[in-house]
């Protein structure tokens, strides 16, 4: 394993698993990984967060699902995926041929039962070293409000998933709340092993010609370059509020953004939308890291986690 780039140590660690660098493609922007092997050798990646997976196969929302924005995009995919069984038996097998490391399975759901059963579906998948719980999904029984907006629901959901799963559980927080630190604490109380953030910000674009929202289901999640400062602020706040490792994301598009996220408190960094506009985004970031570390006088990347909090 090539863990040193020149004399720079880019390694980081999550729940005892060593990543050769902190760069992880974010869920939903990297398919099941192997799509990107047509562009470059994806073995260079720290890890991969897989497309959000549910219990059964889902087609998702009608088109259009995507709207362009000045510094990002709005998506309303609606969690299209082949269901946990096929993800384990087919997608992970395909991925294993082009990626040697272990990955993060991203779990979605519309009820407690769906979350726990989907999470359990990954119990025997050795390729998966952790789960990432996407709590931004609408809670069907709770009136369609996202699970991730109520601290009590979050605590109970995390506890239920922890019981069903043998893997470390990362809870992925929604930024569409008034006090994100309170939700991070609720996840910690529920037994979370780590926190990742931010998921997309609610957004809408309206077509000037038709005066109708562009996205078929009207609103969607805004992500990409433009959300970066929002994400840095929330990563900073959450890493102050909990004692768990934090994975930062939201608008990351360069090695400089990765270092900034780590200063804010991130142990690893996910790169999402940037992959969609440049398939080489993660590769470029990983290759830029050692030179940037040199420029900033950083020898070991783990030394800088949370550095901004001492200021």
């Amino acid at each position: 394993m090539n863990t040193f780039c020149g004399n720079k140590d880019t390694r980081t660690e999550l729940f005892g698993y060593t990543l050769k660098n902190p760069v992880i493609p974010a869920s939903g922007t990297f398919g099941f990984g192997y799509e990107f092997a047509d562009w470059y050798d994806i073995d260079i990646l720290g890890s991969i967060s897989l497309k959000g997976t549910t219990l059964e196969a889902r087609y998702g929302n009608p088109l259009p699902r995507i709207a362009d924005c000045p510094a990002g995009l709005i998506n309303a995919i609606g969690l299209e995926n082949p269901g946990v069984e096929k993800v384990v038996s087919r997608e992970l097998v395909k991925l294993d041929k082009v990626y040697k490391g272990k990955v993060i399975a991203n779990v979605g759901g519309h009820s407690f039962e769906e979350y726990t059963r989907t999470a359990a579906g990954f119990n025997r998948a050795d390729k998966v070293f952790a789960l990432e719980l996407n709590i931004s999904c609408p809670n069907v029984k709770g009136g369609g409000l996202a699970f991730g907006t109520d601290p009590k629901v979050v605590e109970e959901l995390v506890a239920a998933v922890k019981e069903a799963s043998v893997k470390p559980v990362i809870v992925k927080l929604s930024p569409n709340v008034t006090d994100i630190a309170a939700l991070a604490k609720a996840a910690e109380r529920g037994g979370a092993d780590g926190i990742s953030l931010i998921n997309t910000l609610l957004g809408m674009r309206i077509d000037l010609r038709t005066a109708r929202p562009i996205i078929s289901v009207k609103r969607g999640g805004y992500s990409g370059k433009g959300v970066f400062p929002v994400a840095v602020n929330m990563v900073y706040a959450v890493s102050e509020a909990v004692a768990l490792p934090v994975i930062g994301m939201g608008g990351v598009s360069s090695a400089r953004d990765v270092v900034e996220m780590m200063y804010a408190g991130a142990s690893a960094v996910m790169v999402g939308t940037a992959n969609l506009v440049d398939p080489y985004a993660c590769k470029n970031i990983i290759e830029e890291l050692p030179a940037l570390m040199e420029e900033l006088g950083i020898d070991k990347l783990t030394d800088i986690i949370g550095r901004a909090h001492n200021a």
Partner: protein
Amino acid sequence: MKKETLKITANERLTHDAFAMTFEGCSRVKPGSFVELSLDGFFLARPFGAGDYSDGKLTVFYRVVGEGTEAMTSLKAGKEISALTGLGNGFRTERAKRPLLVGGGLGVAPLYYLAEDFASRGVRPTVVAGFRSARDVILRKEFAAISDIVVTTDDGTEGYCGNAVSYLKNNSVEYDYYYACGPTVMLKYLTEFDVKGEVSLEARMGCGFGACMGCSIMTRSGPKRVCKEGPVFDAAEVIL
């Protein structure tokens, strides 16, 4: 699929709202494939069908419909653009002995490169190209050189009066397999008329190469990505 820097060599007006942009520095692409052009000032790249290709030179034919295509009209020769090229599956050219190409509006764009491809192998395709009005007609002369072309206009100002599908219904055109691209309504009527062919579809895209599921449509054989399993689909498979 490749990420390439293309250099604009020409950007010419064809009609009141249609243009042809030609680039050099493009690796070989298949008829029916598309490119994603990254435009300065826009986050998402814009998808365009390969309109013509030879020896590293790529042409896209585009219509101005919004801010991105409007911005394209002011780009000058010499300007370099970052692009993803060779995206999508392309037409299955081996399926036709007597090909019929059916286009509507700018949908004729990918059919021109397809017609050239057939012509280069000694096959002269039949082309039925529908437009709104005489002032919208593009590529008539170019098609006529390599194919038997019928132009139709909705208002009868040029050629047959009516749309491409009504022409097919009312005239006996000999072909064994068709290739079509155009507005969804045209493709819907065409696939209801005959399923021995394939159609090129459009969708708003996040990535253009299969990563985001932004362009996934439901077909008779399950969900498929327009950018990856498409943009060309069997006529019998699509639900329009």
